[in-house]
């Protein structure tokens, strides 16, 4: 026989399947050489056999054999899972749901919050906004822009841009979003033209900001280039027609590029033209001037957002001290990193939801842990039997590992399907107010992470106790006796259950708060009636409608035609639609109102046609509405809202008083002819500010210009969409070059305004229902286990005369304690965690007593529901049978 050292080395290296044969060959070969050439040569030969690189190849060749072993494990696993379908179904469903919702939501989080923006070096880009008492976040003025550009050292470049819309009138007319930008905008955003070139400062001089000059050169968005110009590279240099005037295309922007304000907006910018900022040394006018632009800055290398913010704050303080901005105005410049600015309100909601699904995953893990613990307990006997029959502990370990893997794989598969459906549902549920949601794709990294967490759980709670069973040979006898398991193991389960309950409390409390928030939002009266109103936007460019008279007569003719349609109740048009576009304010001088020294009376300015107030269902409190008699040459009139009447026209009726529109003072007096109820224009929860309405026909005299774009509203008794073809025909007949844009019914507009809250609420409710379901399954699992473990004890008690209710109490007490502790702990945690929801709540405190009082009820009901069936089973334990078996 070969020396022991060689034999040992060889058996360590040889594959198990061939170990015996190889040892035999080693022995034979060694003996032959020993006889022929002596021990040294034989040993050298033996060493050569042992140290061969071909062991690896041999192992590889034999792997098929290992595979077949794995297949055998797999078959066994499927058989054993098939035999306990309840267990399998619950574990797979739990894993599938827990992982599925996580993957779906994390995919959204990734797309909306974590995916890079289409900018170069986005971490150095900040959006600039203004803030003062009446406006929490609003536009920037040209003088302010100049100050930021010239005095803030932390900024490398600052760009200014304004957005609007216009009609492409060559060939098929189309309405597109337009932006006027300073030529350095593309440098600020770190992008270059994909085709052609960007603007020069000479080109910008032709069309200064705040001027009506027609642009001569434009850049196209990649999207427009693809859609309208068929991705034709020869478009560069071509003359196209914007609002009837020719412009030259000088380039195409890179794919995906859009302005920060375009994310989540219904109309996105497709056409860019340059604008120069009027230079001059005059200081910022009092109040900052006309705020109407967006601004963005790129930070200088080495400067942080904090550096820039503190520099800007210094400017704010100086400008307030020297009375450029009044003390009362509390003017501040907001610097927001562009990624944060783009995500906007969706940011906090999504992180809240991400936290919620995290809890759902933990609860799912808790359930799986509990279920596997029970299963391991039940299988102690089987495992002990197998190990005593000679199954190696490695073999049993591998078998159990296979089972964990199979369960995780099945759960993962279900999760993949559910995540796919969930993501589609999320996209369908959300009407576009969450930017970049449409770009969300199933995130496989999230799937991998969630799978890893659950796999770890199942290994920890499935393998460890089962593996322990292979060591404890006494498990055989123990299991045979059916004695109750150790107290500590039971206690561990209840702790686990309590933790699950606590997590469910947090989720249910969050959902409760959102339900109350949404109910509050729905209870808010927007100030108009949204049902049965079709709205669409039309614009009357200067090329075809040279003056105010032409614009007004177009609308008059349009109303005549539309009103003649069947099923049309009334029509009207407004400069901007409430809850769709933000409204700004305009300075006013009110007769008889003496402003405080620092006060600038102002009102949200709206321009409407006769019939608009009736069409969207606003209510007139006093006086009259506009009529066709309010013409350019008649007395100038305004209608004011309640807020304006209360603030500036208190003491007697507002009717007949004069409201002067700043900048046009002294032209002709403007008299109040009506007072209307407040309309929630800038959001359903935004404070309604003083506002006034001017008739379109008089806008030229009241404001100094006539709006070129208006939204048409048509009230009808039939489904609003059915009117559209006829309206299109009428518009085309009046002006074949006029496109129709932003077609919506007013109900969609209203729904869109509460959509973010509805989205958050719907998801939190869904997650908390899921959490309750998981808690219910958790309770069921634990109680069934306890009942099965204490069957003999219960039987003996019943034999000794215990009533059914007292048996019920034995089981119920433990569940009640676990639930109670979970609820207490959960409420404490929820009080801390829900405070992070403050920004998404409305009309309800984060510590809302009603919510926090009802959550425990829901949880106890869940616990009762979960324990009912197994507890009833406990009361049906047959005392005679128990006694016989003892």
């Amino acid at each position: 026989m070969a020396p022991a050292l060689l034999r040992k080395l060889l058996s360590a290296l040889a594959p198990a399947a061939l170990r015996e044969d190889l040892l035999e060959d080693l022995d034979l070969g060694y003996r032959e050489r020993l006889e022929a050439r002596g021990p040294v040569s034989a040993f050298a030969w033996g060493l050569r056999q042992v140290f061969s690189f071909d062991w690896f190849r041999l192992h590889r060749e034999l792997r098929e054999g290992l595979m077949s072993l794995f297949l055998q494990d797999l078959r066994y696993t499927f058989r054993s899972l098939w035999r306990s379908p309840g267990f399998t179904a619950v574990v797979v469903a739990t894993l599938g749901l827990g992982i599925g919702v996580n993957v779906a939501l994390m995919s959204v989080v990734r797309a909306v919050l974590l995916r890079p923006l289409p900018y170069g070096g986005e971490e150095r880009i900040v959006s600039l906004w203004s803030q003062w008492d009446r406006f929490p976040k609003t536009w920037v003025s040209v003088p302010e822009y100049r100050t930021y550009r010239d005095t803030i050292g932390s900024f490398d470049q600052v760009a200014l841009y304004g957005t609007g819309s216009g009609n492409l009138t060559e060939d098929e007319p189309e309405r597109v979003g337009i932006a006027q930008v300073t030529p350095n905008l593309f440098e600020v955003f770190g992008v270059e033209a994909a085709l052609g070139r960007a603007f020069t400062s000479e080109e910008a001089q032709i069309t200064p900001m705040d001027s009506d000059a027609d642009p001569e050169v434009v850049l196209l968005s990649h999207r427009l280039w693809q859609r309208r110009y068929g991705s034709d590279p020869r478009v560069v240099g071509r003359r196209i027609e914007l609002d009837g005037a020719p412009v030259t295309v000088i380039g195409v922007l890179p794919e995906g590029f859009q302005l920060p304000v375009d994310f989540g907006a219904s109309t996105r910018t497709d056409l860019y033209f340059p604008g120069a900022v009027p230079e001059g040394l005059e200081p910022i006018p009092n109040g900052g001037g006309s705020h109407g632009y967006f601004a963005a800055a790129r930070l200088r290398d080495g400067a942080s957002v904090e550096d820039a913010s503190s520099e800007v704050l210094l400017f704010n303080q100086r400008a307030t001290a020297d009375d450029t901005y009044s003390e009362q105005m509390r003017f501040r410049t907001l610097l927001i990193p562009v990624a944060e600015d783009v995500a906007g309100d969706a940011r906090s909601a999504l992180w809240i939801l991400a936290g919620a699904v995290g809890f759902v995953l933990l609860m799912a893990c808790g359930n799986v842990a509990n279920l596997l613990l029970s299963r391991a307990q039940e299988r102690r006997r089987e495992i002990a039997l197998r190990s005593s029959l000679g199954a190696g502990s490695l073999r049993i370990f591998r078998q159990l590992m296979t089972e964990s893997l199979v369960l995780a794989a099945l759960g993962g598969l279900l999760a993949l399907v559910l995540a796919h459906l969930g993501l589609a549902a999320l996209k369908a549920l959300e009407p576009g107010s969450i930017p970049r949601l449409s770009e969300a794709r199933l995130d496989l990294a999230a799937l991998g992470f969630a799978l890893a967490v659950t796999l770890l759980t199942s290994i920890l709670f499935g393998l460890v106790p089962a593996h322990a069973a292979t060591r404890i040979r006494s498990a055989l006898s123990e299991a045979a006796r059916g004695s109750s398991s150790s107290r500590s193991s039971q206690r561990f389960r209840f702790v686990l259950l309590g933790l699950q309950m606590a997590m469910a409390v947090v989720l249910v409390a969050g959902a409760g708060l959102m339900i109350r928030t949404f109910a509050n939002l729905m209870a808010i009266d927007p100030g108009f009636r949204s049902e049965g109103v079709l709205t669409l936007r039309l614009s009357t460019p200067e090329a075809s409608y040279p003056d105010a008279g032409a614009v007004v007569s177009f609308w008059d003719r349009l109303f005549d035609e539309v009103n003649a349609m069947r099923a049309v109740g009334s029509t009207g048009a407004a400069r901007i639609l409430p809850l769709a576009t933000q409204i700004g304010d305009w300075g006013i001088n009110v007769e008889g109102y003496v402003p405080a020294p620092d006060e600038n009376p102002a009102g949200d300015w709206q321009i409407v046609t006769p019939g608009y107030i009736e069409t969207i269902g606003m209510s007139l409190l006093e006086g009259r509405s506009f009529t066709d008699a309010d013409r350019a040459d008649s007395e100038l009139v305004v209608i004011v809202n309640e807020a304006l009447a209360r603030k500036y026209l208190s003491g007697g009726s507002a009717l007949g008083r004069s409201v002067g529109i700043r900048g046009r003072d002294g032209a002709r007096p403007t008299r109040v002819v009506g007072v209307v109820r407040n309309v929630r224009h800038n959001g359903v929860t935004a404070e309604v500010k003083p506002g006034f309405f001017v008739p379109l026909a008089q806008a030229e005299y009241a404001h100094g210009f006539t709006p070129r774009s208006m939204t048409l509203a048509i009230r009808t008794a039939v489904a609003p969409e059915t009117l559209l073809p006829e309206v299109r025909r009428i518009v085309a007949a009046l002006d074949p070059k006029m496109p129709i844009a932003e077609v919506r019914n007013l109900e969609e507009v209203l729904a869109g305004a509460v959509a973010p809250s509805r989205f958050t609420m719907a998801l939190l409710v869904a997650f908390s229902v899921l959490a309750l379901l998981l808690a219910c399954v958790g309770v069921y699992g634990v109680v069934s286990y306890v009942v099965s473990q204490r069957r003999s004890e219960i039987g003996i008690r019943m034999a000794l005369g215990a009533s059914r209710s007292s048996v019920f109490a034995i089981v119920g007490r433990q569940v009640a304690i676990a639930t109670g502790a979970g609820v207490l702990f959960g409420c404490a945690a929820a009080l801390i965690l829900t405070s992070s929801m403050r920004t998404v709540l409305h009309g309800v405190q984060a510590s809302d007593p009603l919510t926090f009082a009802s959550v425990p009820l829901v949880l106890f009901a869940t616990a009762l529901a979960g324990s009912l069936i197994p507890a009833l089973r406990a009361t049906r334990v047959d005392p005679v049978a128990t006694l016989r078996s003892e």
Partner: protein
Amino acid sequence: MLAVARLGAEAYGAALQKMLEETAGRSASIATIYVTLVRLEKKGYVTSRREGPTPVRGGKAKRYFRLTPKGVEALKESHAALERMWRSVSRLGEFKAR
């Protein structure tokens, strides 16, 4: 495969190794030989079987390899192919021993 064929009923690992060493002058480790054997077995050219101890003193159970009909067929085919190639080389008359 030739070695398996030549050894006939006595084809097991150690014997194969010895024969290769003696006839081809090549020393291959047992592992190398088994790699080849396992591959041939997967392709279905040889089969293996553990057989009980031979009735001589000290004889133990061994794994014996045997050619399958498919293996025999493959061996014949490769022999024929070699022969054809050799013939074509002689016909060219350019073959010289190096």
